């Protein structure tokens, strides 16, 4: 324990004496050793009253583990609420009985075990499964994947909409600030609905940065979620800056290409409708390449969604600009023949390729340089995983592990004294790595 906690300047003492209006968060402290706390419900009743609860929380948070036993359901909820109120963390409560329901409801995430004690815990929970050990998979595999997918989804969604919309800002300077859109109205309608929705859906459903075996073996990969590393205010600002840069490229490259320019046969290419088509096509190619870069787990479905959306864009483009449709509704579909006339010429495709190069290369360069200059702890783990994946070790001869749930350490007999030393020596536990000279001591 830190000696400073007894001083006047301790923030908790400060809070207790002044009781300010703003919500108070306990500061993080590093203990000077490994401690554990065991407290029973009777003592907890005293520890949770008034000013003592902060002391309890401060002490408990400095311990490696805390065991509260013989608690009433209300006390279970009170402990959870104590942590929620004074610490900036996400809490998870798991339980299998009706007495755990209040705790499950009090925590941020409630997990219920459907089992021997009925359905109450399960019905009140956010997640339910049948064994306590599945909690490991819930957090380390599915929870982690979910966090990664959500962050990728959010940053991509903001990026593609910034790139899409900010082009109009640059065009305003050249259109007399008359709010003329760069794109055709049908493109604006279909952009978020049809052209870019499926690939990002594919990423959100299927993406895995590492597979489940590695996720379980390296729990350190869970850290970014705990520290809000992958989507926070800084990441949002990065999306914004990336979107602004992309919109600059997407506007000025086509503008430079067609400004004061004509086709090879002298006919028009610098008209509004051609410009609109070129910018649309560049934008879609760039955002498709961006999602392709962010997808780390390419299933068949991802391929279909990503490349299919781009192909679908071209199909719809030619359909909307076709003779038949435009002749039927001349005032609604006004871009007759633009796709055929514009997308035929090499300078248009060269401009699309240049936009793609200018938008993608800085991103790839950043992904390459960031782990070298600003490494995060998790990068080293991922490096190791990639190294292991590319140099697989020869399969070790291991005895087949029984299902972890049924693994039991040896029990002490409660009616006789004397086995405590034997059990705490660890000799009765199954060895992790089979050693030739020891064998499990069977009961």
């Amino acid at each position, binding site marked *: 324990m830190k000696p400073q906690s007894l001083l006047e300047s301790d923030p908790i003492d400060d809070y207790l004496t002044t009781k300010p209006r703003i919500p108070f968060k306990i500061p993080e402290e590093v203990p000077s050793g490994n401690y554990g706390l065991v407290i029973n419900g009777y003592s907890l009743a005293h520890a949770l009253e008034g000013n003592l609860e902060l002391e309890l929380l401060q002490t408990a948070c400095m311990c490696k583990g805390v065991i509260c036993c013989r608690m009433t359901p209300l006390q279970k909820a009170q402990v959870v609420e104590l942590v929620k109120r004074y610490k900036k963390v996400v809490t998870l409560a798991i339980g299998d009985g009706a007495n755990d329901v209040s705790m499950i409801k009090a925590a941020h995430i409630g997990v219920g075990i459907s089992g021997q004690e009925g359905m109450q815990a399960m019905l009140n929970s956010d997640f339910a499964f049948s064994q306590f050990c599945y909690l490991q998979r819930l957090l380390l595999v599915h929870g982690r994947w979910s966090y990664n997918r959500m962050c990728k989804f959010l940053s991509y969604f903001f990026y593609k909409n910034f790139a899409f919309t900010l082009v109009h800002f640059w065009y305003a300077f050249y259109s007399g600030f008359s709010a003329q859109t760069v794109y055709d109205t049908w493109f604006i309608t279909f952009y978020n609905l049809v052209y870019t929705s499926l690939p990002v859906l594919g990423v959100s459903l299927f993406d895995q940065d590492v597979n489940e075996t590695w996720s379980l073996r390296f729990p350190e990969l869970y850290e970014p979620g705990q520290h809000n590393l992958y989507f926070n205010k800084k990441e949002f600002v990065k999306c914004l800056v990336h979107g602004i840069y992309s919109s600059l490229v997407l506007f000025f490259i086509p503008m430079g290409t067609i400004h004061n320019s*004509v086709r090879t046969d002298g006919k028009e290419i610098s008209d509004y409708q051609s410009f609109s088509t070129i910018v649309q096509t560049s934008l879609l190619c760039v955002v498709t390449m961006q999602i392709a870069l962010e997808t780390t787990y390419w299933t068949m479905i991802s391929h279909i969604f990503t490349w299919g959306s781009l192909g679908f864009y071209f199909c719809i483009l030619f359909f909307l600009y076709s003779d038949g449709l435009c002749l039927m509704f001349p005032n609604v579909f006004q871009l007759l023949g633009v796709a055929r006339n514009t997308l035929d010429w090499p300078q248009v495709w*060269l401009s699309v390729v240049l936009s793609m190069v200018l938008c993608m290369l800085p991103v790839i360069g950043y992904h390459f340089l960031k782990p070298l200059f600003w490494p995060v702890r998790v990068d080293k783990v991922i490096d190791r995983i990639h190294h292991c994946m590319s140099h697989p070790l020869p399969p070790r001869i291991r005895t087949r592990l029984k299902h972890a749930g049924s693994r039991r350490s040896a029990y002490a007999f409660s009616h006789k004294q004397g086995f405590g030393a034997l059990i705490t020596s660890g000799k009765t536990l199954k060895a992790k790595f089979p050693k030739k000279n020891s064998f499990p001591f069977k009961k």
Partner: protein
Amino acid sequence: MKRGSHDCQSRLPDNTALKQQQLPAYRLQLTATKILSGFFITGVFCLGAGVILLLSAKNIKEVEINYTEKCSDCAKLRENTANFDKECTCSIPFYLPEAMKGDVYMFYKLYGFYQNLYQYVLSRSNSQLMGIDIKDVSNCAPFKNSHNGIPIAPCGAIANSIFNDTIVLSYNLNSSMSIKVPMLRSGISWWTDKYVKFWNPGSQNLSSAFAGTAKPPSWPKPVYELDEEDPENNGFINEDFIVWMRTAAFPTFKKLYRRLSRIQHFTEGLPAGSYSFGITYNFPVTKFQGEKSVVLSTLTWSGGSSLFLGLAYTVTGALTWLAFFAMMAIHLRLKERKTLFHQE
């Protein structure tokens, strides 16, 4: 107590690859080798494309003459709309030091004319221009009907503001004789525009087909008198009209006006020598501080004489290669440091 085990089993997700998230997949891993080689190849491609584009743009010959103020007092005359019926012509001589070989195109170029303004772009009636319904002027505010209430054909602000200068190029064979350079009025607009999007209404006799409509207020003649010599170029399908109706994206734009007909003295293009432009100045630009010029230009496979794409590609290629060398240096240095560290 044994619970209903069928309850538990009905909650079990299917053991398919999709539901168990074990679909066969390829993992994208961007290793240092892949990234660096990608940068290198992109750099090579961009530099190559840039050099090719620059070389082809250098071969183009272009002559631009800004005649906004050059035409005596025509600019001042046109600022006053009461002078619309007074003709104002002038002749601007110029000298071509080198011959322009190949196809030569004549454009008119406008500065500061915002054909991309929101209300301006909306002010047209495609159903009228397709010949479907000649009296449909619903989108054409503020040029829907004439002061008598008769619908205007073609209606709208775009049609009303058509560029109506006439530019004739003459070549001085020798000091006393000058001939008109033969120019083609056809083949200057998109095929889809001329044959699908724009269509004259009804019958062969255009003036009767356009009965019941009025000419736009700024036009001297009605639409069926745009080119009385060539019925394929009269009415809505007049190519100068079609070219104007294809609104430009930026306030500075050039539109194809005429192209050289390679006959008589001009089979190889325009020979070097002295020429002059005979201009009938009708289009008033000084009122909105705009400018206009006439451009004679040859073209190449990459379009006009704009150096932008070539320069952009070259700069991108150079930057990519710079980035490649920098990243390669960093990567090798760090690899060295890592192996040194492992050796220690």
